[in-house]
């Protein structure tokens, strides 16, 4: 959980002070608009604008980039595959270019992860609830995050115990001994995490949990800064969308 939410650096810079609900709504809206833009240069401009905005508001961009490296690499791989497929395709004008796909996905990952990372766990759950996300879904999300920590903790304990008995990582993918050890580790990890989750659930029941998580978070009043941020986040992609539609062609003339 500590890896997901900016618990300890909260409220230290402008981006963290912006209301969580606004950050989530504006991120979702800008992503929705961006998915309709197909010109790569406009998509790149939107992405550049968002990164600039994060930098100007004091958000730790590099740190976040490191966190989202894996999904971005995955998206990069998939986009390369699309580009490769387009290259050999008989279809002359492919509907989606690999670069556009990559830019859209990169923007979506960055926008959502930066919005979530800049909130406390309580603020995140409250934001979902305030946005009328169904209670069941909010509970599900909040428990997934909490229980992911348990899984991570169990994994860490097992890895340490394994190392302590002299195990060193596999040499390659075909190293059967390592693969067997990793296979067993994953199997036992899920069993142990399930058992521990059961104990955590018992502990929750013993403190009166009956299915509803009560929110003890009171958000600050929405201010001009919040609305200005929300407007900027949605207006910029919207501007490029309108430009793509040719509505500003009279300016270019």
């Amino acid at each position: 959980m500590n890896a997901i939410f900016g618990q300890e650096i909260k409220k230290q810079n402008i981006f963290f002070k912006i209301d969580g609900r606004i950050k989530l709504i504006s991120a979702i809206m800008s992503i929705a608009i961006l998915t309709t833009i197909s010109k790569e240069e406009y998509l790149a401009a939107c992405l550049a604008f968002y990164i600039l905005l994060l930098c100007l508001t004091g958000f730790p961009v590099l740190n976040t980039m490191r966190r989202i490296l894996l999904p971005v690499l995955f998206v990069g791989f998939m986009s390369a595959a699309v580009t490769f497929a387009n290259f050999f395709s008989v279809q002359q004008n492919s509907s989606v270019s690999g670069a556009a796909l990559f830019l859209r996905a990169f923007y979506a990952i960055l926008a959502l992860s930066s919005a979530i990372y800049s909130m406390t766990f309580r603020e995140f759950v409250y934001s979902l609830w305030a946005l009328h996300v169904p209670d069941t879904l909010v509970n599900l999300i909040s428990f997934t995050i909490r229980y992911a920590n348990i899984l991570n903790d169990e994994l860490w304990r097992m890895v340490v115990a394994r190392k302590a008995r002299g195990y060193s990582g596999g040499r390659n993918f075909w190293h059967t001994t390592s693969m067997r050890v990793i296979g067993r580790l994953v199997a036992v990890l899920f069993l142990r995490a399930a058992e521990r989750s059961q104990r955590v659930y018992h502990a929750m029941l013993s403190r009166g949990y009956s299915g509803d998580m009560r929110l003890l978070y009171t958000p600050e009043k929405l201010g001009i800064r919040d609305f200005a941020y929300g407007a900027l986040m949605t207006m910029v992609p919207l501007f490029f969308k309108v430009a793509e539609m040719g509505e500003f062609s009279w300016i270019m003339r």
Partner: protein
Amino acid sequence: MDYAVEIDDLAFRYKDGTVALKNITINIKKGSKTAILGHNGAGKSTLLLHLNGIYLPQRGSVKVLGVEANKENEKFLRKMVGLVFQDPDDQVFSPTVWDDVAFGPANLGLAKEEIELRVEEALKAVEIEEYADKMPFHLSYGQRKRVAIAGVLAMKPEILVLDEPHAFLDPKSKENLYNILEKENKEGKTVIVATHDVDFAHEWADEIIVMREGEVLSQGGTEVLCREEIIKEAGLEFPKVVRLIRKIRGLKVEKIPKTIEEAGELFNSLINNGCHRD
């Protein structure tokens, strides 16, 4: 006699067929300090889980403050019995210490102001106010244990139940825990502790319950821990003070001292007045 807990012929079997409890009949007085002793797998934790309705009796009955433990009274049991689990990592699961301590009071449906007050009091009682905004996973084991205790204290239960509270604690943390339990008991709470620590049980408790393989071997005052047949059968060892007294050949005392300090006083008085030997 006013009892906090009355258990009559309780039996419990896990789904995999393991018989965890059989024919358990015990009474625990209101306001008492009770230690439940037994080796691993003796059924201590399973018994504790019956006290606040996590497990319901499969046979026999459990009464807490005169109220029968059943599905209808679950809420009452959870409000009246605060259970601190052996491993704080099983209990502390919220993103901040404050959130975790507030979890129980929030489930009781209290007003926000009342919750804030209780959390503040509980954090103060276990001396971890400065960690309120910290992530529990960044704290030491002893501190996490205190967070777990605070989470239960904030619910203001009538009966405080702790499962192996001394496990993996350093001497300083053990002393802190001892003081917390004493304070809660002095405020009128019934405190029940499941432990292996015979020294702690002998020094702290006024009621001892010894368990073995799901059964109660003996119940009584601390003198239970001086009886060889009980200690042997339960797979325990004599408390250090008792071992010392037993090593002094011919020494007979009316009342076995509970603490090292009491033993010291006894020896000093024996030295000063001349030993009373057979």
